């Protein structure tokens, strides 16, 4: 597990309570992890703080899966 994935998994666990081991790159935030639009805002806020990146609202809709988010964060940081 990459450091980014590990950090993101901790955030999703904090926000939604999903067990860390279930948070893998292929999982979709909405369909698999029960992250609604409000929780997604919380995830984004926490990612920005944790990884020191900026994730504009326009990008969030492209981050369908955990893997999408990891790739975006790694590209930014």
């Amino acid at each position: 597990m990459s450091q980014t994935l590990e950090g993101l998994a901790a955030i999703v666990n904090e926000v939604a309570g999903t067990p860390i081991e279930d948070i893998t790159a292929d999982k979709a935030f909405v369909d698999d992890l029960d992250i609604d639009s409000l929780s997604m805002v919380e995830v984004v806020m926490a990612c920005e703080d944790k990884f020191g990146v900026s994730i504009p609202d326009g990008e969030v809709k492209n981050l369908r899966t955990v893997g999408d988010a990891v790739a975006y964060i790694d590209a930014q940081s």
Partner: protein
Amino acid sequence: MTDSTRRVVVTGLGATTPVGGDVATTWEGLLTGRSGVRALEDERYTELPVRFAGQVAVEPLEVMDRVEARKLDRCQQLALIAAREAWADSAQPEIDPERLGIAFATGIGGIVSLLDNYDTLLSRGWTRVSPMSVPQLMPNGAAAWVGLDLGAKAGVHTPVSACASGAEAIGYALEMIRSGRADVVVAGGTEACIHPITVAAFAAMRALSTRNDDPTHASRPYDLGRDGFVMGEGAGALVLESAEHAAARGARVYAEVASVGMTADGHHIAQPDPEGAGAARAMRLALEAAGATPADVIHINAHATSTPQGDIAEATAIKSVLGSAVDDVAVSGTKSMTGHLLGGAGAVESVAAILALHNRIAPITANLENPDPEIGLNVVHGQARKLRDGDAVVLNNSFGFGGHNVALIFRSV
């Protein structure tokens, strides 16, 4: 569809209060005189004239999942805890969601979440304001979460009338069932607004006790030494059900919700009418609607906040309504132990009034050492008092800033 004679009964009770984390612990504390008032240790209170409050005996996180809790304002956490206890206590009636309603009140709502997010806005900017802050601060949030939890679709409502809110919610629930909109309604009230600004604000009104050296004895309704109310937090919840619905499923019934009387003083934004005329009218309307006489009343859970004027105004009203029957009525002021739960008060005190009727024992009015001779009521103090058997009713009074008066009558079954 409205049927003012449709009987409505109470089949479930829930509470989380400064005296106990559930109904059983709270009730035991009210019978034995255990205070839930204690010092506010946070240094933000150091410079305030009031440094104590009734704080819940069991922190929400001790009984609630942290992922759920983080979405909720504290008043919503307490509401859900009380509502879930009441629902479980009623043995979870099977009910068409479109026949299940919610009437859950608060006086102040999610003010602490609002203030926390305002602090965040100032320190970190708008991008760090929580996306949950609106659901947390909106006064109907607690009712909405309870409704979502139970899947209620008949209607979800939040009466707001300051310290009468919780009682008004029970009245609203009664009318929802009588009007034919629902067969089961979870009713209640919640509050969790203890914060330096609310303490300062109530203190600015000179409404609070300043007995900082002795918090557990600060709330002392009817005592000559009373000097204001004590802020408290907590929630109470009741499952109300049409009598037919309860009978059809063989539910355990605590009491009938016989009636509600609601009036307004039209006198002052915060002072009680000194004669208690509006309060008296509420009690008279309730008695009339219940078809009850003063002689039927065995117990009153009084509003009795421990303010110098309010306690006298209510006592004057009670005496004018009950006349010579007043001497036989056991009056209890349970805010002496819980503090004043504001929008939660009417619900928690209705739970207490119903248990007093069901178990035929009236809880204590703690801290009554030097009775104020102007009160002239038969106040239960020292120890809990046995109530007579037979058909009877009990009364719960709640009044709120703004001049709101709510009297609820519960009848034995």
